[in-house]
């Protein structure tokens, strides 16, 4: 009942608030005031419905939490799908195989003749999957909030564009070079920020990204200024001539391979000594240092590795678009990649992949609702953070195999 009352109150309040905007309109031609009362009713009804739904969901969430807290046997709780996937290697392999085959067949299923729009969309999305996974190392695993990640992406893209324009180097030579350049920039930027944490770190990285963009925009003798660099060659396949569709599909497979590589590498690192040190640093810096983790080395490696993927995939981006300018590397893109990591669930590879695909594909395929798509997009983010602040996939528990047998004297000799 209180819900109903409160929602009613909110509805009325919104009717009052939106009155000048939604109801009153001055017709300047005839100098008359129009009163659109129907709009008032709509605003009230919508506010009422949303408020009611809102309170209902909040209550449900609280009930769920209480239930979890009261659970006497947390071990016996029903595992989530993601946890089951991680625990059951057979299921895991089957799902992986299925997804892999689907991904391999995808370009042939959705493209034909001159129509390869979906392939191109997917290439862009996969590029962002790699970016998301790369930032996941820095932000998700090591907990270093980076708001300027796109700068490393730009470094990779410009590396390829400039090298191919000035020195006629091919795509495959530049691909690793782009990654290395990204990594170098990561290390250079990493040094001064070793002592910074949280918000301070975020602001410094933000500044770095702005500097990068401004340099690209204004140093036009080298970087082509705001006009950017055009006619960047697409990836070459042993000098074989490819038509538009084939080129798109070829690029698709390259990014797909990169995605697979990123997944394998991140996964390995995550479950290794290095990854554990990153996570420990994220959880508690002082404690991890006191336990023997070298802070400088660990932070730098997380930073450099994150930047490496951005640089690598920047090369693909430049080759795929065959044109780059500073406008492709705005703060908005950094924020978008960060959103992918946060929405997906910090540190979760599967979560970040899903979130990256969703965030990149949703605006693309929501073009039908062009005017509202950013609105919907924003609303989804707000709702996610309220109802699932830990991200899409979390609560993963890595299980190690250990010998439960007693052992005599495990210490000393070492």
């Amino acid at each position: 009942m209180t819900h109903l009352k409160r929602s009613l109150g909110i509805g009325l309040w919104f009717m009052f608030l939106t009155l000048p905007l939604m109801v009153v309109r001055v017709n300047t031609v005839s100098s008359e005031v129009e009163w659109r009362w129907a709009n008032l009713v709509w605003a009230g009804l919508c506010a009422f419905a949303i408020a009611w739904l809102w309170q209902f969901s909040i209550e449900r969430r609280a009930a769920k939490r209480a239930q979890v807290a009261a659970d006497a046997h947390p071990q016996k709780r029903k595992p989530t799908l993601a946890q089951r996937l991680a625990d059951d290697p057979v299921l895991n392999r089957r799902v992986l195989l299925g997804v892999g085959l689907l991904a391999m067949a995808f370009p042939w299923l959705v493209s034909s003749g001159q129509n390869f729009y979906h392939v191109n969309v997917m290439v862009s999305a996969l590029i962002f999957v790699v970016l998301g996974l790369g930032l996941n190392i820095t932000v998700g695993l090591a907990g270093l909030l980076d708001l300027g990640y796109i700068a490393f992406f730009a470094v990779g893209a410009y590396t390829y564009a400039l090298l191919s324009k000035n020195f006629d180097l091919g795509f495959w030579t530049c691909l690793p070079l782009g990654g290395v350049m990204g990594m170098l920039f990561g290390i250079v930027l990493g040094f001064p920020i070793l002592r910074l944490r949280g918000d301070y770190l975020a602001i410094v990285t933000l500044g770095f990204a702005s500097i990068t963009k401004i340099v690209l925009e204004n140093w036009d003798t080298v970087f082509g200024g705001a006009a950017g660099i055009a006619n960047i060659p697409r990836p070459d396949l042993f000098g074989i001539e490819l038509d538009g569709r084939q080129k798109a599909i070829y690029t698709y497979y390259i990014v797909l391979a990169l995605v697979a590589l990123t997944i394998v590498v991140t996964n390995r690192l995550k479950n290794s000594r290095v990854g554990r040190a990153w996570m420990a640093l994220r959880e508690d810096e002082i404690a991890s240092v006191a336990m023997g983790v070298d802070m400088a080395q660990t932070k730098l490696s997380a930073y450099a590795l994150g930047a490496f993927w951005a640089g690598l995939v920047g090369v693909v981006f430049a080759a795929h678009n065959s044109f780059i300018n500073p406008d492709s590397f705005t703060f908005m893109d950094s924020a978008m990649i960060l959103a992918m990591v946060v929405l997906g669930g910090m540190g979760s590879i599967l979560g970040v992949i899903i979130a990256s695909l969703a965030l990149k594909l949703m605006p693309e395929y929501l073009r039908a609702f062009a005017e509202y798509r950013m609105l919907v997009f924003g609303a989804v983010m707000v709702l996610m953070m309220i109802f699932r602040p830990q991200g899409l996939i979390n609560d993963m528990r890595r299980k190690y195999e250990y010998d439960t047998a007693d052992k005599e004297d495990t210490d000393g000799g070492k």
Partner: protein
Amino acid sequence: MAASNERKKLLEVSGLTMDFGGLRAIDNVGLDIFEGEIVALIGPNGAGKTTFFNCVTGIYEPTQGDVKIHPPGGATRRINGMKPNRITALGMARTFQNIRLFPAMTVLENVMIGRHCRTHTGIVRAILGGAATAREEKESVDKSYQLLKKVGLAEVADEFSRNLSYGAQRRLEIARALATDPFLLLLDEPAAGMNPQETHELDALITRIRDEEKVAILLIEHDMKLVMNISDRIYVMEYGKEIAQGTPQQIKENPKVIEAYLGEEAHA
């Protein structure tokens, strides 16, 4: 003291002074720890005990004085201003007054972080895998699991550490510190917030660690019963100064200590 002198000295702190701006938190404090000893550092709140710990373990760099370690089978080193991770690698491990675990990591992983400074897998080897890496990983898992068994946490090895009870979290911190293969363990108020039963178990655990792991222990503690029970020697600090040291019996009878710290409790 006389008997201890025959044993090997592990930690030697002399003239340690720590200033924070105009505030002298520690004033010319000296402390020695010998092999196989349990030494307690006591004193009223704000006496500078935790600051002393932080100076010894490298979190702070002391303003003056020397902190020297003599690792068994290693060379003597002065460790003032050395980074905490290097000091841990040299063989001193600590726990924290306010528990500092890694909440979103499992209990086992928490202990495995302790193995970090004893293992060597780098980025490249972690990516490429291989037999040596797998072996090292397995060693770290096994050793960590055995330590969990020792502190009675083996059943919850796969739980997140944030889900543990308070007493269990304290024990996990000890296990994590032990995983670094220390020769000296520094415990900062290990019994804080524990009920009498848990404190009693902790008492037994600390003694067992000293005997089985051959680790000397320096602890800060407010629980007098625990301190008097297990310590071989006690140092007392007040307002940053060392006011007394000796065996539990000597400390109990020291008028300065009674005045400063134990107060009426000791007379009762």
